[in-house]
């Protein structure tokens, strides 16, 4: 394992720069960060610049090229001159990465981000559509002339690798309360959640401007300021990614109407020696082509062509053995202008043949450029079996074939700061892990045990099917304490790192932390919508936090806000409520009781209103009233069922008008299964969305029957309470069953059946409840 504090810059050649790290234990063993280089295919540079002279279909040109990571011999020589000839070189094992192409058009910097393959030479294929003749000329000038010189454009790889934090201690903290307050305040001008890159940008801004994020670095003796900046960069990246992933998952999995509200405060100190995912950014300028080369790489054509990058992405080898998970992928593209020679092969075992830029003459038969094509692929597995995909029609110019379509999932749990010693420490951590396998394969909750921190004690779950699997999985951490008690920590569910979400394909790493002492906040806030004449006068409530999995029927923490008079449009009840808890958002909840008085003389009683701890904010407004229904999962037949995913939501007032009684069918599917257009429509029409992931138990362990609660909002003017839900049961035999489309009235809780009958017309359950009857039920404690 390399020592991050030993980084040294190595200059080589005319202008090359890279970095080397010394091994933590062996002073003669060094690691060199490889640098980007343009690939060569069959002796020619993997580069093409095309100028469209008459009909570009909206663009003036196209540039495509492929990069790879290499360790230049001259860089090694330069390093050995400094470090000595008797050193040896180790290799990095990448766990994630992104490649960036920096270029500028008319002096305006642009950056394009691509996910490289994580094996072979980490090939990254770039495709840049050039909108104007000026842009084409800029590229022509950047890559031609001045033979042998450097282009002004550069490529940077930022690859992640596991190592230990040395020479410094870092504390990363996030105060969700500040971010939530900030988000609400600025929501009207900023509402772009849902896309990972955008989310990350937004999260960066929220973390900075709201003051919600903070990174403190303490240097060890003899460490340099440069190390401090690198550790700070790493800390901020870690912080931003953690929050961004939560936000992205919340948006994609629809666990909340305001994704930032789904985030939880945390404060984590990374001591020296903690295993972390370190990033190693390194860049190099691209080169200009010789006159002879230019004749081959630059072409002028009349009409725009179809050009699509096909990539195999992610970890496509079995961890441990490094065996590839399949042999080849044969892709067939259907497009009107190229009906023969339209099949090509990507080779899983060869990183150099893991991508393909597919081209065809542009189709203008409809009068304008037709960007739509259809592709399908056949995966050839090592055991001779194959999988034929359905045809997929798209206009995307980048097609990533991801590990989950190969049916592979690899999730590694690494203990980061678990106190595995002492009388109050942790003896071991049992990790229950589940995901839905392909139909017909047995679905079981697997359990493995972690007994130490760090990579050497890592616990890995891996599955290899020959059929595609979905991107989501769930897990539960059961900490067996030294005093023989148990602490359960269960997040609401995780999305595998498909390229849309993060950069590591299907090889996720989950860092496991100390189970105790999660800094938890609850925020009570009030809105007075100016559209309503009636305002909030007085709020008088008490809140308790329950974690039945860890504390049974007793509340863990309690707080009261007495005689609070909300002022203005938005106000927050003081003092803010902070307490220590266990990270168990999937089944802990808040229980809130009290009275709300309005300016029109009316009042509303919250009596045992309960909401999932996934929401750490309760918003009281002058337009809605809050109720909750219990989700009764006690009847689920866990002898047959492995997992249930329950999605609950309400419709926006506008969507209720638009849809009436006929909701679009896609609303019954999880958001990660929706198309982009459907997801946009779902985001606009669903509100108060929550996902409960109910996980069965591994063999020999009794399933805890934990109550869950859905907090519902009712417009004060509405006579009834309405909401929708859908549940997908994954059976132990690998089959799935869903609830039948139906309307339910007169029932005051959500009762999940032992097992939905099969076959049924799967769909949404529309439940309608009388508010007074529900309030009476809530008073009785459920």
């Amino acid at each position, binding site marked *: 394992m390399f020592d991050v504090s030993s980084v040294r810059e190595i200059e080589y050649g005319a202008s090359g720069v890279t970095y080397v790290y010394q091994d933590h234990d062996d002073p003669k063993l060094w690691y060199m960060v490889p640098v980007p280089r343009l690939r060569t295919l069959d002796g020619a540079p993997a580069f093409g610049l095309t100028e469209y002279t008459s009909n570009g279909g909206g663009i003036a040109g196209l540039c495509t090229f492929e990069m790879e990571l290499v360790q230049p011999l001259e860089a090694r020589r330069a390093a050995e001159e400094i470090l000595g000839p008797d050193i040896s070189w180790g290799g990095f094992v990448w766990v994630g990465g992104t490649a960036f192409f920096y270029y500028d058009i*008319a*002096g305006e910097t642009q950056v394009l981000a691509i996910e490289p393959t994580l094996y072979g030479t980490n090939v990254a294929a770039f495709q840049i559509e050039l909108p104007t003749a000026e842009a084409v000329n800029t590229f022509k000038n950047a890559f031609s002339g001045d033979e042998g010189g450097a282009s002004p454009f550069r490529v940077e790889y930022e690859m992640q690798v596991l190592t230990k934090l040395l020479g410094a201690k870092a504390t990363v903290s996030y105060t969700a309360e500040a971010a939530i307050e900030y988000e609400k305040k*600025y929501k009207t001008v900023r509402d772009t959640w849902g896309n990972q890159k955008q989310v990350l940008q937004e999260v960066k801004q929220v973390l900075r401007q709201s003051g919600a994020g903070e990174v403190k670095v303490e240097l060890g003796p003899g460490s340099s300021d440069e190390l*401090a*900046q690198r550790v700070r960069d790493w800390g901020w990246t870690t912080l931003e990614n953690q929050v961004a992933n939560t936000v992205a998952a919340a948006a994609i999995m629809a666990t909340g109407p305001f994704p930032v509200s789904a985030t939880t405060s945390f404060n984590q100190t990374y001591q020296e020696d903690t295993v972390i995912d370190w990033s190693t950014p390194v860049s190099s300028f691209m080169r200009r082509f010789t006159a002879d080369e230019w004749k081959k790489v630059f072409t002028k054509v009349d009409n725009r062509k179809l050009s699509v990058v096909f990539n195999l992405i992610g970890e496509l080898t079995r961890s441990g053995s490094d065996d590839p998970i399949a042999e080849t992928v044969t892709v067939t593209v259907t497009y009107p202008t190229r009906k023969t020679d339209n099949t090509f092969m990507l080779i899983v075992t060869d990183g150099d043949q893991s991508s393909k830029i597919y081209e065809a003459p542009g189709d203008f038969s409809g009068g304008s450029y037709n960007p739509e094509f259809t592709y399908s692929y056949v995966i050839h597995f090592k055991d001779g079996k194959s999988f034929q995909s359905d045809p997929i029609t798209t206009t995307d110019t980048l097609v990533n074939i991801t590990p989950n379509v190969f049916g592979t999932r690899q999730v590694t749990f690494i203990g980061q700061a678990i106190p595995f010693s002492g009388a109050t420490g942790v003896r071991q951590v049992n990790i229950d892990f589940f995901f839905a396998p392909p139909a017909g394969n047995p679905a079981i909750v697997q359990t493995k045990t972690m007994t130490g921190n760090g990579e050497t004690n890592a616990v890995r779950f891996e599955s290899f099917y020959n059929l595609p699997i979905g991107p989501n999985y769930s897990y539960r951490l059961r900490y067996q304490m030294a005093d023989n008690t148990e602490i359960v920590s269960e997040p609401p569910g995780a999305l595998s790192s498909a390229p849309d979400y993060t950069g590591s394909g299907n090889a996720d790493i989950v860092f496991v932390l100390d189970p105790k002492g999660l800094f938890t906040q609850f925020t009570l806030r009030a809105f007075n919508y100016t559209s309503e004449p009636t305002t909030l006068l007085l709020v008088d409530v008490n809140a308790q936090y329950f974690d039945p999995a860890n504390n049974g029927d007793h509340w863990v923490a309690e707080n009261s806000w007495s005689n609070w008079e909300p002022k203005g449009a938005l106000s927050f009840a003081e003092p803010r409520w902070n307490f220590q808890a266990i990270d168990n958002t999937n089944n802990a909840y808040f229980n809130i009781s009290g009275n709300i008085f309005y300016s029109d003389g009316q009042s509303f009683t919250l009596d045992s209103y309960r909401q999932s701890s996934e929401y750490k904010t309760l918003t009281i407004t002058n337009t809605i009233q809050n109720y909750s229904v219990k989700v009764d999962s006690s009847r689920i037949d866990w002898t047959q069922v492995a997992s249930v995913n329950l999605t609950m939501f309400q419709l926006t007032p506008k969507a209720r008008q638009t849809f009436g009684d006929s909701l679009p069918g896609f609303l019954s599917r999880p958001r990660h299964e929706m198309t982009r257009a459907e997801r946009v429509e779902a985001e606009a029409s669903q509100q108060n969305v929550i996902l409960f992931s109910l996980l069965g138990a591994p063999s020999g362990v009794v399933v805890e029957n934990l109550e869950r609660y859905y907090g519902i909002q009712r417009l004060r003017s509405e006579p009834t309470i309405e909401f929708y839900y859908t549940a997908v049961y994954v059976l132990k035999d690998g089959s799935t069953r869903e609830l039948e489309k139906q309307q339910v009235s007169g029932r005051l809780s959500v009762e999940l059946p032992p097992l939905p009958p099969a076959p049924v017309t799967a769909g949404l359950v529309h439940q309608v409840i009388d508010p007074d009857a529900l309030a009476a039920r809530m008073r009785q404690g459920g």
Partner: protein
Amino acid sequence: MPPPIPSGNARRRRDLGAEPPVRLLAPLPDVGAGTVPAATVSSLDRLLAAAAPLLPPGLTAQDCPPSDLTPAGAPLEAAFVWADGEAGCDPRLSLDPAPGARPDTRLAAALSLCRTGAGTALAPAALRLVERLSCWQRQAGARYGAWAGLREAPSGGLAAKLYLELAQVTKANGRPLWAALEERLAGAPPVLAGRNLRPTMLGVTPDGGLLELYYRADPLFPGDLDTLMARFGLAPRGHEVRRLIERLTGRSVRFEIPSSDIGFSVAFRMAAEGRTQAVAFTFYSNAAALLGPDARIADALLVEGAARGWDMTAYEQAFAGSAALRRAGEAPLQRHGLLGIVLATDAPPRVTATLAVPVPPAGGRHA
């Protein structure tokens, strides 16, 4: 591209920096002598004391409406400028002379204050500019109209500067009315078409000898700054901005400059025959968008100031004093406005920061 995020609170920000005005008034009073220990009287105190007699009396009234000049709603803002090897912090003041008033009323009040501050009428060229921009403001509907600026001149006394809102009025063909003026000042066609650059304010000294054009922009890369500087005939120094931002934020800048709310200004010296010469480029960011809440902004500036030997006394005192701006029962408001990096021709980079400050009582010393 997401829209810039307003800072601090619901009030809108001002696009403002400060460049040296030129006219002089009477020597500044020595407010420290004989009254309080000299060490406690900062250069900002001296400036505030000198400016106090010029300030409209209504600014200190309890019922003075909040101003759009600062996120905190204060009608007065101090700017500090620091550079390695330079003594002091060269404080300047920006002022809303008529909080809550209509833009045309404020423009008249700002004009009057500048006249008084400069001790002379505006030069014909400056007046023509005022008339032209106020005409655009009437056509397009202005937000604030104008602000006034005051600073201490190198030889003592006060100098003034007038800041005029550049209204976003367009011709029938969609071209902004300011486009011709902007191109004439720049002397070159626009660049960075994808960055949504738009001039929003013009600063002018009473003698019309120095103009400063302030722009807002979508997020920029350090390399974009070089493109901008080249357009104005200035040497490319984007790397200096990047380096200072890295020092202030403690992080590497690999992509866009890490702020959602940024802009820049270019100062022009008027030469013979109406020609202009760019003499300074200033990168601006909303301070909170770059560094976070007030305490973190102050911390970053004080750490950098201590490391580089800057005189932070006046700033430190003003920051402590600005806590008085918080009104009872209200949430804390953002007190810092902008943070800038000034690149004047052949000079080392300077760092500037603006801070809302309480209005001193007329004729008295700033507490």
